[in-house]
């Protein structure tokens, strides 16, 4: 049917009032909600001793001094590849889970889902279950409706405030910030961030809800391309359920199926769809319709699983009475194995990088304007700007030296000749200007350039690092 007549371009939102449900998937979702929100709200309060000069917060994003602390790991800006690697792993992990089990991320762990679930639970606790909420929605405004709505929004705001609050605690010392927030002396950025996150949490979780998933989120579109007939997703065994009760299709040849058209699956759905219409773009595969239907099937004495996790080819095989594949056969296939291997390779790369991550480091920038300087006795000198990185929580004496086939002399600017030990402050990068000289008429001074290597040695634990560069001579002129 093609549209020829003028239909409205825009439609009003149909409000969704999910009914309370009990079952194994609901319990799993409660568990995941407690775990994920618990981790999110509590992590900033974990302490981790790193010595006197470094912060003692276990997880801290220190934007001012450009450091990221994660328990025993400390990431500097030049090690940002760790974050990039984690993002790649997150992406590959999402591909893997989507091709194996559909939109499990959406259904169980996506922050939008978790907070929406929390906001719906709050709403149910204050305004009552589905029928009460529908009545309240339709009721005229009176004192009771006003009281319930105000209570609901007040609780939502508290949740939103805690959410925004938890976010800012990741960026500075949490106990100090809490005191400052309460007595009004915290940085305006903290208040602004909290206000924005409070409002957006209430808006996303309380008001917009499923509309974020349906209209705003790009993931549902991308995920559709990663699912195939082997992907385990939520389906309705229509061969078993149809024709449903009250259906015109019920005849003597095809008696009523298991579906009694009780609408339990529709009433519990947080995105407001009927799963019996088949897999749909809106479905976040949260599994609540399975719980609802299993409950009904138990009550009418039919086997569970009229609505269940199943793959498209299972549904087809069952319909034809053929044996279905085992779960592991759905999960272990080239596609998921490729995703898993890629994920593991990146993961192992990061772990290796973490173990070989040095505590000291140097970068040498040769000053090439001019390329060399002639001193009064004919000595040829090159200048290098060396950045020394000390990742320890204390000042460390670093000794500089240079190795080369030619005879080269090293001097640190501002220090006596022969004193090549530089004290690098705790947890910082320190810039020193270093002079390297070759005596007049020696090979290094007359050659065009000579390979050389700078060494830095931590004189306390003998850690060392090096960087290769060149010494420029006159080139015979």
């Amino acid at each position, binding site marked *: *049917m093609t549209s020829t007549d003028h239909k409205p371009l825009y439609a009003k*939102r149909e409000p969704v009032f999910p009914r309370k449900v009990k079952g194994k998937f609901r319990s799993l979702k409660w568990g995941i909600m407690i775990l994920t929100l618990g981790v999110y709200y509590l992590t900033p309060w974990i302490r981790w001793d790193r010595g006197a000069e470094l912060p003692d917060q276990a997880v801290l994003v220190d934007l001012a001094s450009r450091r990221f602390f994660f328990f025993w790991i400390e990431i500097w800006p030049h090690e940002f590849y760790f974050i990039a690697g984690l993002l790649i792993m997150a992406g590959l992990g999402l591909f893997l889970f989507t091709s194996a089990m559909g939109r499990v991320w959406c259904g169980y762990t996506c922050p939008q889902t978790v907070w929406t679930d929390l906001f719906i639970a709050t709403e149910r606790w204050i305004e009552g279950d589905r029928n009460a909420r529908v009545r309240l929605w339709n009721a005229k405004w009176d004192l009771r409706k006003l009281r319930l709505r105000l209570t609901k929004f007040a609780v939502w705001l508290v949740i939103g405030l805690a959410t925004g609050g938890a976010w800012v605690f990741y960026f500075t010392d949490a106990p100090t910030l809490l005191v400052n927030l309460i007595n009004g002396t915290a940085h305006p950025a903290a208040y602004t961030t909290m206000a924005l996150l409070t409002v957006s949490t209430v808006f996303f979780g309380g008001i917009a809800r499923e509309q974020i998933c349906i209209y705003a989120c790009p993931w549902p579109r991308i995920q559709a391309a990663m699912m195939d007939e082997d992907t385990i997703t939520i389906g309705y065994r229509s061969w078993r359920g149809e024709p449903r009760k009250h259906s015109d299709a019920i005849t003597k040849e095809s008696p009523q199926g298991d579906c009694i058209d009780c609408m339990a699956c529709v009433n519990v759905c947080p995105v407001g769809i009927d799963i019996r219409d088949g897999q749909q773009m809106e479905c976040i595969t949260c599994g609540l319709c399975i719980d609802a239907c299993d409950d009904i099937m138990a009550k009418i004495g039919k086997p569970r699983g009229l609505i269940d996790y199943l793959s498209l080819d299972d549904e087809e095989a069952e319909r034809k009475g053929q044996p279905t594949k085992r779960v592991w056969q759905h999960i272990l296939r080239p596609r998921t194995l490729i995703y898993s291997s890629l994920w593991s390779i990146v993961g192992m790369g990061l772990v290796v990088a973490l173990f070989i991550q040095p505590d000291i480091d140097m970068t040498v920038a040769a000053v090439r*304007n*001019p390329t060399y*300087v002639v*001193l*009064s006795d004919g000595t040829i000198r090159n200048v290098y700007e060396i950045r020394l990185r000390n990742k320890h929580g204390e000042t460390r004496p670093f000794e500089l030296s240079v190795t080369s086939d030619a005879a080269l002399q090293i001097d640190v600017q501002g220090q006596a000749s022969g004193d090549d030990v530089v004290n690098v402050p705790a947890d910082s990068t320190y810039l020193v200007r270093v002079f390297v000289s070759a005596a007049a008429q020696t090979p290094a001074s007359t050659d065009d350039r000579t390979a050389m290597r700078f060494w830095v040695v931590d004189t306390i634990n003998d850690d060392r690092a090096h960087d290769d560069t060149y010494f420029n001579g006159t080139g015979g002129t």
Partner: protein
Amino acid sequence: MNKPDKKDDVDTTGHVWDGIEELDNPMPRWWVWVFYLTIIWAVGYSIAYPAWPLINGATAGLLGYSTRGEVAEDIARVDASNAEILARLSTADLTAIRDDDELHTFAVNAGGSIFAANCSQCHGRGAAGVQAGGYPNLLDDDWLWGGDIEQIAYTVTHGIRNEQSMDSHYSLMPAFGTDEILMNDEIDAIVQHVLSISGQDHDADLAGVGSTLFLDNCASCHGDAGTGMQEIGAPNLSDAIWLYGGDADTIRTTIQNARFGVMPAWSEEFRGASGLSLAEINAVATYVHQLGSAQ
């Protein structure tokens, strides 16, 4: 497979790809309200901020915002935050700056900017000087008027052979050729002597003649051995560093015509508002001092 479908109750757009039809579901109503809201916002924005182009400029906007104003505020904020350390720098004992890590780092960075803006035109961005123009290299260890940090600050303050400042370093080499003090063959002999004391290829016989002439005419400033005299800015002629060049032709030109390199005075005393403040002079002196071979 019994495929329940929304197709029965929803229109399609009429587009079909590989048998897949596109449903024509309506957009949510609030979506269009968000669109209207952005229009209202845009109207408000164009009233509050500079927006509508006019013949000379644009509407100013009720909030009085301008990007130039924002930059001016930023600069004022940075100036205010630097005021304390600049005050410290202007009263600092120059030789003690090296011991104060914070002050030294600030002075080197500020001095680098001041050098780039005021000094690099002659001395070069890397401070290596320009030999063809007689602009000294500040990276080597040969200083005409002294290379400790106080001497550097003094030179920056008063300049060289600068008429404005009575205290400016001043010296004058006679133009031995142009003023007919020496004959051409005498100059040639002195050139050979200077080549010999600086360890270059030379004519030994001529140099022998030149050494006597050198003692009579040049040694009063450049010293008997040609090692120069910093107090009067007489260069060392025996080392490997040449202000204008150390080959025979250039040395002859120098003796013939003499040299008279000048440097302006940079302090506010002599340049008014465009001059460098005491703190800025101390900063640029610190910067030059740490470049290489200053004493």
